[in-house]
Structures are given as structure tokens and as C-alpha cells.
């Protein structure tokens, strides 16, 4: 009897803990956020900002310098999804978004270093909203380069492809949405 009681007592907290773990996202003591919503690009592509979509595409398809053979094959397969895209246009996209990825990675490293520095001295962290605006400016800048480099038909295809890719994206809805 006593052994059964001990077993039950041991199991009870374990069960309670397991239940708490599965509900952590919904409610965690001490953590407070307004409850985020997700926007599915499949259902609402119009709610995925173009610059966010370009950024995501640039990061996934872009390659940093000295990519592996496998990485290049992947990139080529991604770019081949655009119908009738001329080789010159595809190569230009690969080159430009690779440069974007390199610059963005550098900006992220710099931003995170400033976050860590602020944390060390107990200071105010850098403004994330400003950082995201800088990201959007960077995307705009590289989009201009792409627009100047690609043929008009290639650019049209590229823009159409990014809109299609929104169906494979999800973002956290901005507050208030």
C-alpha cells in the first residue's frame, strides 16, 4: 500500500509537469506578451510585405562566397523555377543576392554585438524597429540593382516569382492586426 502511494506521489508531479510543458506557449508564468498571431502567405499573400518576401528569398537562395557544389546545385534549382529566365539574368540574380546575404549577415553580426554590449553594461538595447527599417532599405537598394541589371522580361518574371513564393511564407502579424 505504502509502495503504491509512493509511486502515485512520484507520478503525480511528473504528470502535472508534462501538462505544464505542453501548455508553455499558451501560458507561461512570468512571461507576458500580447499573444502573437501568424499571417499565412498562402491565405493572405497581400499581408506579407514585399520587402520581407524579397529578404527571405535572398537569404534562402543567396549564397555566401565559396559555396559548396551542393549549395550551387540547390541555388541553380531554385532559380530554374522561373520560367524562361535567361541564363544571364539568373546569374545576375545569384550574384546580387549573394552580395546581399553577405552584407546582411555583417549587419546582423554588428547589431547583435551592440545588443550584447548593451546587456553587459545594463544599457538600452539597440532599437529593433530601426534595424528592420535598415534591412528594408538594404533590400530596396539591392532590388534597384537587380532592376537595373535584369532584362525587363527577366525582372517581370522575378517579381512574379517572389509573389508566388509568399505562399510558402509565414510572418508574425504586427501588433494590432
Amino acid at each position, binding site marked *: 500500500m*505504502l*509502495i503504491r*502511494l*509512493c509511486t502515485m*506521489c*512520484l507520478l*503525480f*508531479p511528473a504528470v*502535472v*509537469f508534462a501538462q505544464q*510543458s505542453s501548455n*508553455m*506557449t499558451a501560458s*507561461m*508564468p*512570468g*512571461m*507576458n*506578451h*500580447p499573444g*502573437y498571431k*501568424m499571417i499565412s502567405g498562402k491565405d493572405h499573400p497581400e499581408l506579407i510585405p514585399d520587402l*520581407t518576401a524579397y529578404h*527571405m*528569398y535572398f*537569404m*534562402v*537562395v543567396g549564397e555566401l562566397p565559396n559555396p559548396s557544389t*551542393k*549549395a550551387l*546545385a*540547390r541555388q*541553380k*534549382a*531554385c532559380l*530554374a*523555377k*522561373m*520560367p*524562361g529566365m535567361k541564363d544571364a539574368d539568373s546569374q545576375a540574380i545569384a550574384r546580387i543576392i549573394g552580395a546581399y546575404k553577405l552584407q546582411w549577415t555583417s549587419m*546582423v553580426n554588428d*547589431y*547583435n554585438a551592440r*545588443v*550584447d554590449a*548593451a*546587456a*553587459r553594461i*545594463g544599457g538600452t*538595447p539597440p532599437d*529593433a*524597429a530601426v*534595424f*528592420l527599417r535598415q534591412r528594408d532599405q538594404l533590400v530596396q537598394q539591392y532590388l534597384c540593382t537587380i532592376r537595373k541589371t535584369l532584362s525587363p522580361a527577366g525582372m517581370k518574371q522575378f517579381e512574379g516569382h517572389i509573389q508566388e*513564393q509568399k505562399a*510558402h*511564407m*509565414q*510572418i*508574425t502579424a504586427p501588433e494590432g492586426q
Partner: protein
Amino acid sequence: MKANCTRLLFISLCLPFWCSVANAQGCRLDFTPNYAIYENVSSDGTYIYTSVLVAGSTTGSGSAACNPNNVTHTPKAYNKIGTVGGWVTGTPGHMNSYSSVQNNQDILGGPGIIYLDASGEIDCSMFGTFWTGGFNPKAIRLTTTYWGPPPIDSDGECYYTTTACRNNTTPTCRSSKFGRSTPQCVAYLSELGTRVICCDRRGLYVCVWLSSKGRGGRRTVHLRTSLRLTYGVCICVANL
């Protein structure tokens, strides 16, 4: 034995209270997650490539009691295609840092159905998983696409502008390795001026040119094998 059980009973009853005490130190984090997830599927006709990117940041702060400077966030991306892949964990960073992780996988494609599952999450060192995103699993297969009707005639050549998949699935690309003006018609017949163009698909693509300007009014047939033609391979996707 009785003493051991009594000790166990005491420990098991007290353990949950210790956890509660740890959570009731006045530690409080107020923050807003701002993350995104993107899945990309592509193929070169041999391999299927899938990528999952999870990226973003959190804004907010914590009370002094929980020392938010010790709180880290870790991005995780789940990318499983068939039997390949799984979770990839990014580098933990300060809770206010910008974090991202990309999970690339590839698998040899084939006519059989392969299942793709993609999701992501952000884990907090103090509170566990607080953000998740993901997509419905997909059944994908590497298959030869065909050009969807209607064909387009242009200067004596016929071509299609869209690809299609059989069995009501959707191609991930609108065209793949087909040349734009390469005949891809299946049992397509068209008259253009004096020429009749017939394109058929039997392994190699053969273009048959019929001319009514032959000697003595005889119609002569010219066969032309298109060497430019390769084949169309695309991934067909059906949402489960």
C-alpha cells in the same frame, strides 16, 4: 523500506513547490516576438532540395529579478523530407538579438511520393518554446511535367507557356527545362500557311514538317529532330 518510501513521498510532494518558488521570484519578461518562416522546394531533376529559414527578433525587456541579460533565445528549424533531415538548432543569442537559422536538406527524387514537413520555433532559455510557425505537410513527387494546353503557334513552331502535372497536383514551377520554342505538343496539328506542323513526343521529340510545295504537287515530308530538347522535370505538390 518504510523510511525510504516516506522520504520519497516527501520529495515528490515538495518538488512541485520548489519549482513554483523558482517561478515566483518576481521575474517577469514583457516582450513581443517578431519572427518569420519560409520554406523553399526546388529540384534539378535528380535531387529534391528543401530549405527552411526561421529568422527574426524579440523586442521587450525583463524585470531585474530575472536578470534578462542571462536570457537567451535559440532559433530552430525543422525540415524533414522523406527519411532525411530533422531539427537544426541555431546559435543562442541574447533575447533582444536578431536570430536566424536555415535548414537545408536534399533527397534523391523519384516517382514515389515523398512527404515534406517544415516548421520552426524559438526557444527561450527561461520559459521554453514561445514562438512556433509551420506549414501543413506536403506530399511531393518528382515527375515529368507536360505542357498544359492550349499550345501557342508562332512562326511555324508550336510551344506551350505553362507546365502541368497529372493527378490534379500542382507543379512548383511553371516551366523547367523545356526550351521556349521547342515542340512539346502531344498529337498537336496545326496549319500555318503552307506548312503543317506536327509535333509528337516519343522519347526524342520529332517535328514533322509537311510542305505542299513539292515537285508535281506532291507533299514532301521533312523530319527534324530537335536536339535542343531535354526534358521537363518538376516537382508536383499536393497539400495533404
